[in-house]
């Protein structure tokens, strides 16, 4: 991709580097983001006209702020390491997949498997998330202001999933050590996922998560905690006939 094209991106008065995807390609955007080095002064970015594009701001590895003005398609912010990405719209499947650190905020809704396999950082979805939210999460924190769909936190290993609304069927199926906090109704719990006591350390943890996600009008005591019953950790000889 010719580097000269990247220079077409302009600066607005707030010194954010503006990248219009109606004029420049997605590859040019992501390449420019990947070329950032530690200490770069280009810490504020604005992406215009995403129009459902896939893979917007994937693989960011510097602590820059990226504001995406509109809705994005698959895998926005995937593998994010340190970036602060805000989508002023909705996100397609796999937003923040395998995020390492930093934060992603979706002002609208998120489609399937938001935050899948995420290892760290904070994913905030201000609308609803659909099925498989936080599937196989491995340390990421996810805060959803609305509801989440079925099979969320399937095989979730660590990290925290906070849901201010309701959860769909089979929440936390085959869960390991992730913590799930749901304020509303849970349609059903998956295999080996159970309701657990909210102890003071969980109230404290949840308050911290709500603070980080900018949630001010909700108390930790309004949530229930769910997690692993730990009965699937080891093979039970009594189940041998099932195989």
């Amino acid at each position, binding site marked *: 991709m010719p580097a000269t094209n990247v220079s077409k991106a302009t600066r607005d008065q707030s010194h954010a580097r503006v990248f219009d995807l109606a004029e420049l390609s997605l590859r040019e955007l992501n390449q420019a983001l990947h070329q950032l080095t530690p200490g770069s002064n280009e810490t504020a970015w604005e992406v215009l006209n995403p129009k459902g*594009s896939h893979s917007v701001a994937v693989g960011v590895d510097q602590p820059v702020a990226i504001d995406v003005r509109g*809705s994005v398609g698959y895998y926005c912010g995937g593998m994010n390491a340190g970036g602060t990405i805000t989508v002023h719209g909705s996100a*397609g499947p796999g937003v923040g997949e395998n995020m390492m650190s930093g934060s992603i905020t979706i002002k609208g809704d998120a*489609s*399937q498997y938001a935050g899948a396999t995420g290892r760290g950082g904070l994913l905030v979805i201000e609308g609803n998330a659909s099925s498989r939210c936080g599937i196989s999460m491995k340390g990421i924190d996810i805060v959803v202001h609305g509801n989440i769909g079925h099979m969320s936190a399937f095989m979730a290993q660590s990290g925290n999933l906070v849901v201010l609304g309701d959860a769909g069927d089979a929440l936390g199926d085959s869960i390991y050590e992730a913590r799930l906090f749901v304020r509303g109704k849970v349609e059903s719990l998956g295999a080996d996922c159970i309701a657990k006591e909210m102890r003071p350390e969980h109230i404290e943890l949840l308050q911290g998560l709500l603070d980080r996600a900018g949630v001010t009008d909700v108390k930790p005591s309004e949530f229930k905690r769910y997690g692993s019953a730990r009965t699937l950790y080891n093979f039970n000889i009594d189940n041998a006939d099932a195989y």
Partner: protein
Amino acid sequence: MCGIVGLFLKDKALEPKLGAMLSEMLISLSDRGPDSAGIAIYGAPSGNEAKITIQSAKPERDFRGLDAEVAKAIGAPVSIAVKSTHAVIRTTPAKIDEARETIQALRPDIRIMGAGDVVEIYKEVGLPEAVVERFDVRSMTGTHGIGHTRMATESAVTTMGAHPFSTGADQCLVHNGSLSNHNNVRRELIRDGMKFETENDTEVAAAYLSSKMAHGKNLGEALEGTLSDLDGFFTFVVGTKNGFGVVRDPIACKPAVMAETDQYVAFGSEYRALTKLPGIDNARVWEPEPATVYFWEH
């Protein structure tokens, strides 16, 4: 993968643009399936005319003089409008079944794409852009339509394997996914009198709905039945003479986005397909729920 789109107009002022709008929606999803593409357009009812969309690999040979030969055989006026490898045969509604049988007897190599009072179906191997150009879909007017771009999994890359599949008058269906019990369901439907043209799983879903509606179910009830009777992955978008429906299987791993305004209801496999629609920035945009039937009728 596969990409599917649907557009159901509420505002009559948009009807002249239906073909153009649906074409752009489908082209935007080209990279979800490069094998074949197809589109079904529901035009305005003309009153005393019914249509059959036919296809031939040798259109010059098969379409020449066909209208006169069919007219003579059925004793009713017949017209033909040729578009590339497809043609639309028009005749009086009472003679439509007879015309269809006559066409197949006179020209065994002709394939029937669909028939009804209002629907026209165009589908071919190739990318959406090429298919839209070939059949001049952008210029078509209508009340609603559905489209599909295919990444083949369950049957060969052929014209007949392309979507939409039509198995009843003015009924058609596009599908993203794959069915695992289609052979069993096909056998049951054959016993019920349904006829099949291909080995394709999606044709079975279309015939399933046609069969249910032939037995008196409405579109919503027929779609509801797919949730218990069809096994596999599916997002279906369905058109009938005056209706438009959407259903996803309970696992719902095949993507779907819908948008509704005062002017239209639109469906796309991805939001990309909806971005050029008028007023999309203020539309209600949502992901259809798993195992939930959505349908609209004029």
